[in-house]
């Protein structure tokens, strides 16, 4: 049957590319597409990227890392230090070494209804979070604060029952409008607060927001509309209205971008890099596409209970046998830099001279020989009757990871390792297999952490999940090295800058030598933007680009 000429022409036009609305965003409205909808807009429940992204437009944390990865005050006048006396050591209520940390709020800050933001809001937020029945995500922070001492409307001191070096950051203590939330909190049981809060029952109440925008309309699962906040005290944002639309299917997300239904796709929660590269190839002329490698650390967790993988030379041979640069170049267009440890090179604590492993399959094979792993009749190495055979697992359906898996299997096969691929849906993989240490080889996934984040939960021996501790902890590999424990504990408590620098060097050197996990690369976020959008700076860490939305504008 012949396709009618008009239909054929239409099809061709659509496939080869029609005039695209790359400059369609207007000053009146910017429509952003993301692939997830926040479950709640309450700042302290259900930590998820979608919520952080939207919240960045309508509220601010007390401190945050800026796009240059420097810790900065967003609501406070300055970061507390020992030098200026805003941090002092003291004895905690339980007799343990504690500390007092004093912050001052910036003057002139108000909630969306015009009510001043004061220390009463800080104290109330602490009170709600300190009650363990409330169930805040960051309960540990609230537990560590014994009390909040209010000096006046702007100045407050946190009395912390543990002496640590990360006292400057206060991004998890989220302000709550006491004049709205206090009567709600006090009207029922703390356990029910998450259902009674105004963020749930009345999320468009202006008094809940204090960013450049405030929430105007929400259609659950669909979109959140934000309008200018007339009471915002900072620089006025450029766009009158911002709509954040959720389109879960990433193919539909890019199709919506081409149709002009959305103006941009957020890098924080948008499409995978392979999709972005394919999109760029076809429509790169019409859009501004930014790739930003960040703190998503793709790696291979290596289980330490395995008879072969528990040997350090075997792990070192495995990393030498992988051509990680070729993986980055060929699968990800070179946009995802190879990782040499769990610390990102953009992080101020990165140590550049740590041990590195170039692709060298011959050296890998020699290392295995030296360790006693010799090639058997079936081509697989053996030692004392044990075969160098293990499972390589990842999240089923993640195309990028599945492609990397194929390469890893082939390259490890070349040095005599028998690798079986077994993938599971993300929910089963993370909640059952990895977090309960039920994998018997290597697990491919990513960690997201903050800059300068001490990896205690992933590397300390007291963080190995087990039946006895209700599977708490993220040291899924079962890595236990007293030297690493010492370094991690030192990083938490020895705060002198030179000691910190030395400990970070030691940590990265030991990590790259012991290889409890095999580093692969740092994942890049892909931002698909209108050509004329300026001022959006990808951050690469957990603080989204929306926190600096005042700088976004269209080129005239």
């Amino acid at each position: 049957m012949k396709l009618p000429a008009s239909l054929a022409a239409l099809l061709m036009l659509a496939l080869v590319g029609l005039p695209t609305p790359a400059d369609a965003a207007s000053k009146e409205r910017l429509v952003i597409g993301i692939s997830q909808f926040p479950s709640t807009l309450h700042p302290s429940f259900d930590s998820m990227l979608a919520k952080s992204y939207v919240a960045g437009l309508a509220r601010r944390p007390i401190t945050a890392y800026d796009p240059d990865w420097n810790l900065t005050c967003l609501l406070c006048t300055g970061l507390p230090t020992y030098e200026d006396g805003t941090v002092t050591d003291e004895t905690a209520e339980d007799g343990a070494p504690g500390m007092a940390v004093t912050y001052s709020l910036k003057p002139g800050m108000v909630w969306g209804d015009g009510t001043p933001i004061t220390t009463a809001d800080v104290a109330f937020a602490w009170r709600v979070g300190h009650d363990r029945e409330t169930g805040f995500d960051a309960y540990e922070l609230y537990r560590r604060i014994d009390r909040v001492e209010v000096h006046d409307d702007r100045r407050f001191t946190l009395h912390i029952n543990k002496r640590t070096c990360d006292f400057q950051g206060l991004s998890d203590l989220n302000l709550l409008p006491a004049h709205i939330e206090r009567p709600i909190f006090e009207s029922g049981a703390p356990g029910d607060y998450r259902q009674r809060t105004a963020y749930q029952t009345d999320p468009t109440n202006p008094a809940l927001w204090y960013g450049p925008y405030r929430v105007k309309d929400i259609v659950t699962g669909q979109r959140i509309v934000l309008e200018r906040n007339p009471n915002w005290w900072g620089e006025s944002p450029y766009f009158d209205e911002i709509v954040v639309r959720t389109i879960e299917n990433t193919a539909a997300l890019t199709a919506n971008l081409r149709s002009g239904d959305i103006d941009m796709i957020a890098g924080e929660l948008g499409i995978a890099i392979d999709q972005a590269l394919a999109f760029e190839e076809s429509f790169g002329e019409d859009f501004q596409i930014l790739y930003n490698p960040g703190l998503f650390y793709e790696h291979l967790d290596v289980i330490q209970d395995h008879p072969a993988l528990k040997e350090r030379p075997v792990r070192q041979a495995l990393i030498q046998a992988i051509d990680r640069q070729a993986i980055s170049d060929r699968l990800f267009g070179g946009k995802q830099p190879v990782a040499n440890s769990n610390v990102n090179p953009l992080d101020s604590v990165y140590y550049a001279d740590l041990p590195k492993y170039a692709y060298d399959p011959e050296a890998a094979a020699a290392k295995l020989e030296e360790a006693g792993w010799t090639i058997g009749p079936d081509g697989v190495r053996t030692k004392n009757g044990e075969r160098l055979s293990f499972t390589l697992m990842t999240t089923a359906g993640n195309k990028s990871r599945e492609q990397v898996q194929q390469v890893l299997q082939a390259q490890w096969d070349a040095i005599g390792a028998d690798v079986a691929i077994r993938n599971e849906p993300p929910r089963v993989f993370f909640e059952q297999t990895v977090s309960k240490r039920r994998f018997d080889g290597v697990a491919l996934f990513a960690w997201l952490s903050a800059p300068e984040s001490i990896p205690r939960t992933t590397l300390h021996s007291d963080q190995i999940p087990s039946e006895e501790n209700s599977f708490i902890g993220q040291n899924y590999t079962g890595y236990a090295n007293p030297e690493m424990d010492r370094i991690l504990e030192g990083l938490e408590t020895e705060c002198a800058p030179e000691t910190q620098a030395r400990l970070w060097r030691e940590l990265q050197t030991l990590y790259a030598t012991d290889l409890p996990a095999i580093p692969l690369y740092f994942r890049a976020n892909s931002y698909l933007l209108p050509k004329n959008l300026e001022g959006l700076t990808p951050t690469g860490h957990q603080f989204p680009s929306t926190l600096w939305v005042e700088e976004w504008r269209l080129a005239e």
Partner: protein
Amino acid sequence: MLSYTATRLLECLLVLLVMSFLVYGLIGLMPGDPIDLMISANPDFTAADAQRLKALYGLDRPLLERYGTWLWAALQGDFGYSRLYQQPVGDILLPRLGWTTVLLGTSLALTVMIAIPLGVWAAARPYSRVDYGINMICFAGISVPPFWLALILILLVAVPFQAIPAGGMGEAGAGLLERLRHLFLPVVTLTLASIGGFTRFMRGAMIQALRADHIRTARAKGLSRARILIGHALRHALLPLITVVALSFGTLFSGALITETMFSWSGMGRTIYEATLGNDYNLALVGLLTATGFTLAGNILADLLYAGLDPRISFQTASDGTGGGSTA
């Protein structure tokens, strides 16, 4: 008829009860629970937190006991809160039920309106070029994956003609035209995907009906071809189609996951899927039971419609006293 309907309704309630137990059990047996999710997402979570929250949510109790508690509350109209949305389950499901019904109802109506004439046309000239052409279109519709069809339609329609949105459901308080614009592509996708099956079914039923004795009689009486097709054969052929349409009635309320996802349509399919993946027991359970309930209702409706359209079917008990029960 009344007694038959009452009996069937009672049977439905029993089936719903059994289904609620099965679905609750299956969800409970799925790997992971909300606390596992929190543990894997939050490095600061402590063992004490895990124990406390398991007790708070009742997850430390046996499955059967939890089911009993849920059932007792549900019987009193309390279906609990959605863990994902922090809202009562009813508040989440009711609007989605409406949106799904609008989407799938429109699509089903369009499908039937197109499939019936197409099926009749094909059956009127079996094995002709027209028949082969219609069959080819039908097989294409059946074979094409809905997600691909949705993407192609977005590219072919929404990209060049920006008056047709590529997804979403329109602004809050939008007018009818705005709603229709957003409804256009999802309805077209669903209709194109389901038209083939209905047309093939209609064609088969019509061909069979056209071979019946009363059609031969009608032809012998010299009735026009149109009258034979529409007035005699179609009425006969519609009976089996009613069963198919009535069975599809249940799907009106269970949603179309792929289409809803591709077009960001907040319907039941997408909601149940997200609830299942997100360990939102209450939402998934009530969503699945709602779909089950409407499917059962569709079956009853089909039986009742049968009696209305086919005088040979009766719901009266046998008059000679030897038989009991229904004859449907």
